[in-house]
């Protein structure tokens, strides 16, 4: 169904304690992925392309977790 409230909650929860700056870019709009409203604002549909940028000391760890979450469909 795309990035609706539940997956967005999963993402925000996952990023809550990470130190890196995480941003999503979709349709030329870049947002802070730690804020749920920003993710929801993107209103990204299913199978759309989102560019994820992670910058910080725990970047690779965070990226791995995010990839896993996206691949498993946020536990759906």
């Amino acid at each position, binding site marked *: 169904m795309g990035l609706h409230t539940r997956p967005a909650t999963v993402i925000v929860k996952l990023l809550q304690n990470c130190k890196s700056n995480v941003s999503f870019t979709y349709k030329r709009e870049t947002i802070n992925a730690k804020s749920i*409203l920003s993710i*929801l604002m993107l209103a990204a549909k299913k199978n759309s392309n989102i560019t994820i940028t992670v910058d910080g000391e725990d970047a690779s760890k965070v990226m791995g977790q995010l990839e896993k979450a996206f691949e498993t469909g946020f536990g759906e």
Partner: protein
Amino acid sequence: MYSVQDLHEQHGGRLDFELIAGKNGMKKRIKVPEAHRPGLGLSGFLKGYSYKRILICGRVEIEYIRDLEPETRVERLEAILSAQTPMVIVTRRYRPPKELIQICDQKEIPLMRTSMATMSLLSKLTMLLSEEFALSMSCHGTLVEVFGVGVLIQGDSSVGKSEAALGLIERGHRLISDDIVKIRKREGGYLEGSGAELTRHHMEIRGIGIINVANLYGAVCVRDYKSIDIVVKLETWDDKNFYDRVGLDEKCCDILGIKLPFYTLPVKPGRDVVLLLETMALNHRLKGMGYNSAKEFSTKLFEKISGKPGKKVPKSEEAYN
């Protein structure tokens, strides 16, 4: 990418557009925010002529085309119209010459007719286009109007931006946007912030969830857009950091090439952020009215210790003397 279709959909009603020909070219991009009357180009002088501009044909142009021989008409029109031309507008509801209609259909250039007078269309169109082509960006933060001052609150996640905004709303100030602010550089060198279409007037408060401020507190507590006057960065109190204690040196930040007063506000339990933000906004207004509390105080002190009342303080010695 701003296309002719976007312009037609967004402002077609106000500009009274009526599509005559060239329907297939509606997806055409408008590349430069310029509209142009092709007077000289129509007479055959094409040195330095640019095809990227929107063409506007007013009374003079239409009369001139009518006066030309049919063959010359086609020749001249073909010379000024190219596949790059985004659109042609005929004003005052003139009926476009059939040659113009043909060429527009052929080259897929949308041809519009409007009842507006040429000059007023030209000025309105220029204004709309320059707004549409203005520099813009979106940033993470919250925009609130406090005593008429547009305060952009920035800071890391969970530092308390939304909570501060909620407190301000509760005291009768207005929310423009929470979390994500779209900033646009406006004519006249100021910045205007607004919210995203979908999340406008919504806030996310940890522990409560997503709330609609306009519904909770009423229409008086929200605004769609507001100029940004000051930027405040909230950060968690750091004992090692030295925070501004006097307020004599003013910091600035740069957004889209415009300098804005910038304040750092440390947050810790016991500091009423809402009250502090209100004070900042008021102090900013006071400065705008020509009164700077910190400078005034420092001048008074200078007079007192130098023992010469009323002496004008040289600018360089004003600070900390």
